C-alpha cells in the first residue's frame, strides 16, 4: 500500500494557497463531460454534491434516507467553530489550528488542520448567505459562545439546533442543483459496494430500498461522505441507520482504514434504562458549565439524591482536577465516570450513571436563568426519563458519539485508491485521536464546500474525458458479490434476530474497545468477534423478501459488516501501545492514572490494509511530523 500524503511544500500558512494555484483546472466546457458520484447527504456529502454540480460537473448523489435532509449531521446540537475573532478575544487561524492539533493529542496531520482553520471563515460566510439563522446579538451581529473548554468564544450556534440549520442550508443548496438538473439525486438507495477498475475507483453498486433492485452506477470519481461507525457498539448517540458499510466495503476493495480505534465517548448522555434500549441520547456538554457532577461517597448508597447530605457526596471531578473540575475534557470526564460506576458508586435504578446536579446553580442564579440557558435540554431530559431536573439531579453516563478514525486520505482528501475521495467523519484526517466540541460540523463543511470541489477537479483534469460506463466486467462481478451476500443473508433462516447479534457484538466492543482498553481484553475480543460472526451466518433470521422494502435486510447487511470491522478496531487498539486522546490503554498510564502518550514510538497514523475476513490486517504507517506545534502533555489538574 502506497501512502503519500502529498502535503504541499512551503510554510504552513501558504500551503493551501499555493496548492490551489498549482492544481489543474478543467475547462468549463469540459466539466459536463465528467460524472462524479457522491454517496451520503450529510453536511459533507450534500455540500460537496451541491458545489460540484454548481461548478458544472454531472453529479449523481445517493442517500439511503427518504430525503437529503435527514442525515445524522442534523442532530448536532452545540455549534460550529470558526476563527472569525468577532469577539476580539485573541482568536486567530493559528490559534484554532493550534487548539485542534493539541486537542487531537498530536495525532493529526498539521497541514490538513491548518487548512481546516483557514476555510472555517468561509463556512460561516456561506451559511449566513444561505439564510442559516445563527444566534445574533441585539446590534444585529453574530453571537458566539465558548465551547468544550476553549478559551476563546469562537462557536457559532443556532439555538440547540446548529447541525439541523447547517444541514438544511446544504440540503437547500443541493435541492436547488437538483432543480437545475446538475445533480441527479437518488434517495432510498444504499451503496453496498465500490467498483474498482484497474486500480481506480469507477463506480458503486447500490440497492434500491423500496424495490430491492440492485443497480450499477459509473463515474469518473467516487466521493464517500458516509459518516462514522459508532454504532459498532450498538448503543451510541448515532442515528439508528449510521453504519460502516460504505467505508468498510471500500476498505475491502483496497482503501486503507486509518486509526479505527480512535472513537470518542461523550460524557453527558442519558444512561440506558433497560434491555429494550435502542440508542442513547446526548445532552449538550454545555450543561457542565453550571451542573456539578457527583456520586455517593459510599459505594452502594441507594438513598435518593436529596437524602444524601453534602458530607457524603463525592464531587470527584472537582476533587481530582481542582483547576478544571466539572469542565475537564471529554475523555477524562468519561473515564472517571466509568471508574465511579465500576467501583459501585453508580446511581439510578440500574446504578449506571452519575449525578449532574443543578441545585447550587439554581440557588445562585435562580430557576429562571437556568431555564433560559438549558430549558430545552431539561425538557428533553424530562420527556425521556420522567424526572424533573429542576428538582432532582440529572443522571448521566458516557456514550460512544463520534469516530475520529476513517478511511485514509491524502491532502487532497483522496484515498490510496485513485479516484476515491472521502469527506467528513468518514475520513480520518483532521481530529487526530480526539475531536474538540463544535469541530465536526466545521470539518464536514470545509471538506464538502471548499476542499473536495477543487481537489476532485484537479484529479479529473488528469484523467481522460472519455465517458465511463458500467460495461467493464468489474461492475458485473461486484453486482454478483452484492446479490450473493443478500441471498446468503436471506437463506440462513435461523432463529435469532439481527439485533440480537448486534447487541452481542456491541457489548464485546464496549467492554474491550470502549472507554478503556487493555491488551488482554482486546485479545479476548479478537477471539469472540469471529465466533459471533460465525454464529450470525448460521443462526440469523432475516424475514420477508429481498425485492421489497425490507428493513431487516438493510440492518442485516450493516451488522454483517460491523462483525468484520470490529476486529480491525481491536487490532488497531491492540497495536497502539500508548494512551492518546480517546484511546486509553490501562497499561500505559502515568503514576497518577492519566494517559501516557508515547511520541517516540507512536507518532504515526496507523493505516490498515484488509487481507481477508478473519485474517490479521497489515499495518502501514504514515509518520506524523510537527513543525509548527510542539507536542506537549495535556494537564488539567
Amino acid at each position, binding site marked *: 500500500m502506497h501512502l503519500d500524503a502529498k502535503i504541499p511544500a512551503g510554510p504552513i500558512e501558504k500551503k493551501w494557497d499555493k496548492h490551489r494555484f498549482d492544481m489543474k483546472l478543467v475547462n468549463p466546457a469540459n466539466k459536463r463531460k465528467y460524472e462524479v458520484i457522491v454517496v451520503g447527504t450529510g453536511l459533507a456529502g450534500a455540500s460537496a454534491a451541491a458545489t460540484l454540480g454548481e461548478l458544472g460537473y454531472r453529479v449523481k448523489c445517493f442517500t439511503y434516507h427518504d430525503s437529503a435532509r435527514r442525515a445524522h449531521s442534523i442532530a448536532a446540537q452545540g455549534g460550529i467553530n470558526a476563527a472569525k475573532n468577532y469577539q476580539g478575544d485573541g482568536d486567530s487561524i493559528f490559534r484554532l489550528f493550534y487548539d485542534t492539533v493539541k486537542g487531537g493529542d498530536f495525532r493529526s496531520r498539521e497541514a490538513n488542520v491548518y487548512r481546516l482553520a483557514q476555510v472555517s471563515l468561509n463556512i460561516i460566510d*456561506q451559511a449566513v448567505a444561505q*439564510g442559516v439563522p445563527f444566534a445574533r446579538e441585539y446590534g444585529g451581529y453574530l453571537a458566539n459562545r465558548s465551547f468544550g473548554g476553549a478559551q476563546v468564544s469562537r462557536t457559532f450556534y443556532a439555538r440547540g439546533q446548529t447541525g439541523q440549520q447547517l444541514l438544511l442550508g446544504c440540503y*437547500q443548496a443541493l435541492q436547488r442543483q437538483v432543480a437545475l438538473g446538475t445533480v441527479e439525486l437518488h434517495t432510498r438507495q444504499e451503496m453496498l459496494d465500490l467498483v474498482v477498475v484497474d486500480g481506480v475507483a469507477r463506480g458503486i453498486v447500490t440497492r434500491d430500498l423500496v424495490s430491492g433492485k440492485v443497480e450499477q452506477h459509473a463515474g469518473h470519481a467516487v466521493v464517500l461522505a458516509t459518516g462514522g461507525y459508532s454504532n459498532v457498539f450498538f448503543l451510541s448517540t448515532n442515528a439508528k441507520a449510521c453504519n460502516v458499510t460504505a467505508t468498510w466495503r471500500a476498505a475491502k476493495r483496497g482503501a486503507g482504514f486509518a486509526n479505527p480505534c480512535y472513537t470518542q465517548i461523550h460524557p453527558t448522555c442519558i444512561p440506558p434504562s433497560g434491555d429494550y434500549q435502542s440508542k442513547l441520547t446526548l445532552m449538550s456538554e454545555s450543561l457542565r458549565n453550571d451542573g456539578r457532577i457527583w456520586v455517593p461517597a459510599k459505594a452502594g448508597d441507594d438513598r435518593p439524591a436529596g437524602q444524601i447530605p453534602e458530607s457524603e457526596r463525592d464531587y470527584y471531578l472537582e476533587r481530582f482536577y481542582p483547576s478544571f473540575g466539572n469542565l475537564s475534557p471529554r475523555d477524562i470526564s468519561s473515564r472517571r465516570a466509568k471508574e465511579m460506576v465500576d467501583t459501585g458508586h453508580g446511581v439510578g435504578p440500574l446504578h449506571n450513571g452519575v449525578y449532574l446536579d443543578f441545585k447550587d446553580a439554581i440557588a445562585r442564579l435562580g430557576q429562571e436563568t437556568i431555564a433560559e440557558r438549558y430549558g430545552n435540554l431539561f425538557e428533553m431530559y424530562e420527556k425521556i426519563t420522567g424526572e424533573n431536573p429542576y428538582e432532582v439531579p440529572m443522571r448521566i453516563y458516557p456514550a460512544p458519539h463520534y469516530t475520529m478514525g476513517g478511511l485514509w486520505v491524502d491532502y487532497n482528501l483522496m484515498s490510496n485508491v485513485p479516484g476515491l475521495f472521502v469527506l467528513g467523519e468518514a475520513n480520518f484526517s483532521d481530529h487526530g485521536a480526539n475531536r474538540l466540541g463544535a469541530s465536526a460540523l466545521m470539518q464536514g463543511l470545509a471538506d464538502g464546500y471548499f476542499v473536495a470541489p477543487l481537489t476532485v477537479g484537479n484529479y479529473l483534469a488528469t484523467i481522460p474525458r472519455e465517458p465511463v460506463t458500467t460495461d467493464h466486467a468489474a461492475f458485473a462481478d461486484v453486482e454478483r458479490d452484492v446479490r450473493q451476500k443478500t441471498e446468503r443473508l436471506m437463506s440462513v433462516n435461523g432463529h435469532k434476530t439481527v439485533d440480537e447479534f448486534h447487541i452481542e457484538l456491541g457489548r464485546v466492543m464496549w467492554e474491550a474497545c470502549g472507554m478503556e482498553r487493555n491488551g488482554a481484553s482486546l485479545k479476548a475480543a479478537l477471539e469472540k468477534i469471529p465466533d459471533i460472526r460465525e454464529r450470525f451466518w448460521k443462526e440469523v433470521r432475516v424475514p420477508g423478501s429481498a425485492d421489497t422494502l425490507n428493513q431487516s435486510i438493510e440492518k442485516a447487511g450493516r451488522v454483517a459488516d460491523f462483525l468484520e470491522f470490529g476486529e480491525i478496531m481491536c487490532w488497531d487498539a491492540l497495536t497502539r501501545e500508548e494512551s492518546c486522546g480517546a484511546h486509553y490503554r490501562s497499561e500505559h498510564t502515568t503514576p497518577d492514572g492519566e494517559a501516557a502518550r508515547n511520541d517516540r514510538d507512536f507518532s504515526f497514523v496507523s493505516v490498515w490494509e484488509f487481507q481477508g475476513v478473519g485474517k490479521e490486517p497489515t499495518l502501514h504507517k504514515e509518520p506524523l511530523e510537527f513543525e509548527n506545534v510542539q507536542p506537549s502533555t495535556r494537564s488539567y489538574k
Partner: protein
Amino acid sequence: MNLTLHVWRQDEPTARGRFETYQAKDVSEHASFLEMLDVVNESLIHEGKEPIAFEHDCREGICGSCGMMINGVPHGPRNLTAACQLHMRLFRDGDEIWIEPWRATGFPILRDLVVDRSAFDRIINAGGYVSVRTGSAPDANAVPVRKHEADRAMDAAACIGCGACVAACPNASAMLFTSAKVAHLGLLPQGQPERYTRVVDMIAQHDLEGFGTCTNHGACQEACPKGISIDFIARLNRDLLVASWKAAEPEAVVGG
C-alpha cells in the same frame, strides 16, 4: 404494562391494507414508543412473521423521519413531541392503541407505516433556498440582522419536515410546511431578492403535488412537534398577495 396494538399493515403501495392486532406484553414505562415497537418487531420475527415497517433514525426528535398516527393523533398524545420522544409512561396498562401511517394524497403509502414524502423535497426544489454560489458570500457580519427577525426566522426554520401537519389537516394541506420555509427565508435580508418568486413557485408546486388548500383549521400547529405557528401561513398569504401585485409590473428585458 400490557397493551393491545392495532397496526396498519400494507405490503406495497398498490396492495390492500388492513389492521392487524398484536399484544405488547411487559412494556416498560421508560421505553419510548418506537422502542415498544422494536420489542414487538423482535417477537414477530421470532414467530416467523414480518416486522412492522416504520421510519425512524435519530430518535431524538430532530431528523423528521418518524411519524405515525397514534390513536388518530400525529405523533401521539404529547404536545411538541415526535413519536420517537414519546414515552410509554403516557399510556396505561390495558390500553388499546391504533397505529396508522400518515394519510394524504401527497404522501402515498409505501409499506405499513412508511409513506413517500418526496413531495416536500419537490416543494423545496421550486424555490426553498437562497441562490448563492459557494465561495461568493460576503463576510458573515457584513449584513446585520435584527435579533427579532433572526429569532423569528429560527422559529420557522425549526421545521423537521416530518409531515405531521399534512396528516393532521382535514384538507391534507402542506401549507404549514411550505409557509415555514417561505417565512424562514423571507424574514432574513439574504432571502429578499427571491422572496416573491419563491412564494409563488412553492405554492404552485404544493398544489401540483395534490396537497389541499388551507382553510385555517389550525390542526397543523397543534400536531407540529416543533411548535411551528400558523402565523407563518398568514405571513405566506401576505407575501402571495404582494407577489400578485408585483406580477403586474413588467419584467425587465433580458440583456447585458
